[in-house]
C-alpha cells in the first residue's frame, strides 16, 4: 500500500468516526430516508378516490336515478348530498363539504330515449388543482362508462409500467433522488466547512496530506453511506410498496454511484468555497434539494416547463438520475437506452470534482 492510499485511508477512517459519533448525522443519514419513505409512501398519496360529491336530479325519471347510481358505484365518488338545485350546492362547495356536483338536467331521459345526445353537468371545486384534475378525469371516465350509448367511442386505455397508476411506484425512485441529493450534499458540505471553522484545515495542510487525498478520503465514507441509503430505500420500496426493479441491479447501483459522486461533489464545492457551516447548509439545500424536488421531473414534468426552466433543469444531474431510475427500476431499460442520461451525469461528476479540487486551495491565504 503506498503513501497516497495510506493517508487517504487515515482521512476516511477519521471521517467515519466523525460520522458515527454524530447522532444528528446518523439520524439524517438513516432516519430521514425512513421518515420520507413513510411520508411519501403512505401519507402523501396522489391516488385520490372517495371524492365527496352532491347530486342534483332535475329530471326525476328512473333513467336519471339509475345514471346517478352508476356514477357513484365505482368508488371514485361518494354521494354526499342530494339537492334540489345547483344553486343549493354552492354553499357546500364553498365549505368544501363536497368537491363537485353532478347535475342531471330536466329532460335528459327524454332526449336520450329519442337517441339525441344528452348533457350532464359537472360542477367542480377548482381551488385544489391536482385534486380537481384527478376528479375531472374520474368524472369523464364514469360519465363515459355510464353513457352506454357511446360505446362505439370507448377509448381503450392501458397504462404501461405502472398499470394501476399507484403513486408509490412513482415516488420510490424519486425518493432515492431526493434523499441522495439532500443528505449527501448536506453532510459533505458540513464536513469540510467544519474543518475550516475548527482551524483543523491548517493543521492538515502542515502534514504531507495532499488535497486530492483530503477530498477522496472525506468522500469515501459518504459514498458508502449513500449506498446504504440507496439499498435501504430500494429494499423497503420493494417489500412495502412492491416497487419492482426490472432492470439490472448493477446498472442501478453504478448509476447511483455516479449520481452520488455528483451530489457529494456539489457539497464539497459548496463548503470549499464558503468555508462556513451555516452558509454551506443554505447553499447546499438551494443547490441540491430544491432542484431535485422541483426540476427533476419528480413533481412537475419537465416537458411542460417553460423553455428557460427546461434549460436550467438540464444543468442539474437530478433530472437525468430520475429518468435513469425510472428506466432501470420500472421499465427494465439497459445502457443502450439510458446512455443519453448517463453521459451528462458522468460529465457533471467529473466537472464538479475537478472544480472542487482546483478551488480547494492548498495554501492558506
Amino acid at each position, binding site marked *: 500500500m503506498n503513501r497516497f492510499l495510506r493517508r487517504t485511508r487515515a482521512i476516511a477512517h477519521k471521517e467515519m468516526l466523525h460520522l458515527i459519533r454524530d447522532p444528528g448525522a446518523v439520524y439524517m443519514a438513516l432516519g430521514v430516508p425512513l421518515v420520507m419513505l413513510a411520508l411519501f409512501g403512505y401519507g402523501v398519496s396522489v391516488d385520490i378516490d372517495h371524492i365527496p360529491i352532491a347530486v342534483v336530479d332535475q329530471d326525476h325519471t328512473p333513467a336519471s336515478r339509475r345514471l346517478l347510481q352508476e356514477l357513484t358505484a365505482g368508488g371514485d365518488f361518494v354521494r354526499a348530498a342530494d339537492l334540489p338545485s345547483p344553486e343549493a350546492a354552492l354553499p357546500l362547495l364553498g365549505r368544501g363539504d363536497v368537491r363537485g356536483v353532478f347535475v342531471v338536467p330536466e329532460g335528459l331521459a327524454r332526449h336520450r330515449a329519442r337517441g339525441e345526445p344528452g348533457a350532464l353537468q359537472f360542477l367542480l371545486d377548482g381551488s385544489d388543482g391536482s385534486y380537481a384534475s384527478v376528479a375531472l378525469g374520474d368524472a369523464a371516465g364514469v360519465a363515459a362508462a355510464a353513457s352506454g350509448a357511446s360505446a362505439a367511442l370507448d377509448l381503450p386505455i392501458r397504462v404501461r409500467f405502472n398499470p394501476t397508476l399507484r403513486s408509490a411506484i412513482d415516488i420510490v425512485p424519486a425518493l432515492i433522488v431526493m434523499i441522495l441529493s439532500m443528505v449527501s450534499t448536506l453532510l459533505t458540505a458540513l464536513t469540510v466547512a467544519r474543518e475550516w471553522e475548527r482551524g483543523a484545515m491548517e493543521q492538515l495542510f*502542515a502534514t*504531507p496530506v495532499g488535497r486530492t487525498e483530503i477530498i477522496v478520503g472525506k468522500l469515501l465514507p459518504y459514498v458508502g453511506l449513500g449506498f446504504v441509503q440507496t439499498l435501504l430505500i430500494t429494499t423497503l420500496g420493494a417489500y412495502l410498496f412492491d416497487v419492482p426493479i426490472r432492470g439490472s441491479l448493477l446498472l442501478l447501483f453504478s448509476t447511483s454511484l455516479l449520481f452520488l459522486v455528483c451530489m457529494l461533489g456539489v457539497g464539497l464545492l459548496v463548503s470549499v468555497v464558503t468555508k462556513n457551516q451555516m452558509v454551506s447548509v443554505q447553499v447546499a439545500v438551494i443547490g441540491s434539494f430544491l432542484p431535485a424536488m422541483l426540476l427533476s421531473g419528480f413533481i412537475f414534468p419537465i416537458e411542460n416547463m417553460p423553455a428557460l426552466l427546461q434549460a436550467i433543469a438540464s444543468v442539474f444531474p437530478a433530472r437525468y438520475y430520475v429518468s435513469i431510475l425510472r428506466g432501470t427500476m420500472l421499465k427494465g431499460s439497459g445502457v443502450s437506452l439510458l446512455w443519453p442520461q448517463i453521459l451528462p451525469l458522468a460529465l457533471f461528476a467529473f466537472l464538479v470534482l475537478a472544480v472542487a479540487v482546483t478551488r480547494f486551495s492548498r495554501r*492558506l491565504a
Partner: protein
Amino acid sequence: MDGRAIRVEKLTRRFGGFVAVNEVSFDVAQGEIFGFLGANGAGKSTTMRILCGLLPASSGSVHVAGVDVVHDPAAVRRSIGYMSQKFSLYLDLTVDENLKFFGGAYGLFGRDLRGRRERVEAQLGLAALGSRLVASLPGGIRQRVALACAILHSPSIVFLDEPTSGVDPESRRAFWRLIRKLADAGTTIFVTTHYLDEAEYCERLGLMSAGRLAALGTPIELREAFVPGRMLEIHGVGIDALRRSAAGLPLLSVEPFGAALHVRVDRDGPGADDLRRALAAAGVPAQVAETGVTLEDVFLTVERATIAGGGG
C-alpha cells in the same frame, strides 16, 4: 545542513499594500529553542506559516531542515511538526484516535505507528488517557495531546504557534519542561508566544515589531543591548510625581510596570537608597527596590524604539 535547522534571508510577505513581514533574516541552530516574540499582528504567525510552507513568501529565501521552502513548500512538511494556535484536535475523537489519524496523515502505519504512539503517550504523560474523548479533557492536557500529534513522526523541527494560550500556569510550566526535554534530544523548537515570562525558557529570541525583526539574541544579550544598567522598582508614587521629586538624579528611563514603576539607572548610577531618600525629602514616601531587568522591559524598549522610528 551545516548545523542550522532554519535559515531565513530577507524574507518579505505582502498582503496587498500591507507589508506583514519586512526583510526578516535569522538562523536557528539544530536543537535550539528559538522564541519568536511580538504583539498581535507583528508578523510572528505569518513568518511561521511561511516557514511551514503554508503561505508563499513574496520575496526572500527560506530553508527549513535543508529544504528550500520558497521553491518546494510541500517537501518541508515531512520533516516538521506543526502545532497550530488553537491546537485543533478533533474533539469527538479519543486521544488514541487523534494520534492514529495524524500518524496516518504522515504516512505512518501498523506496528511502527502503534510503537510511536505508545512511546509518545508515555513521554507526555498521556498513557492512561488514550481512550478518553478529547472533548472531556482540560486545556492543559489537550495541549499535550496536540504536541503528541505534532511529534509522532519524529520531526527534526517542531513549530509551536502560541502553544500555551488559554492554559493554566502549572500546565504551562509542565509543558515547557517537555519542550526542554525534546530540545535536549536534538529537536529544534520554533515557538511563538506573547507571554514574556515564557520567553525566558528560550535559548534565543527574535522580537518582531510591525513586520520587522527588531531584536535578535539570547535573553541576556537582549537585556544588555536594549536595557543596559540596573533596574529599580518603585511602588506608591506616580510617574509625574517621581519625575518632579527625583529631578536631580540621573534616571535613564521611567516606565510604568503593572502597578509599579520601573526606573532604569546606569550601572554606577543612584541606588535604591538614594532614590528613596530623594522621594522622602520631597514628601513622597515610596518603596524602592533593586530588581532584575525583565524581558518585558526589553520588549517595551524595543516597541518604543520602533514607534519612534516611524513604525519601522
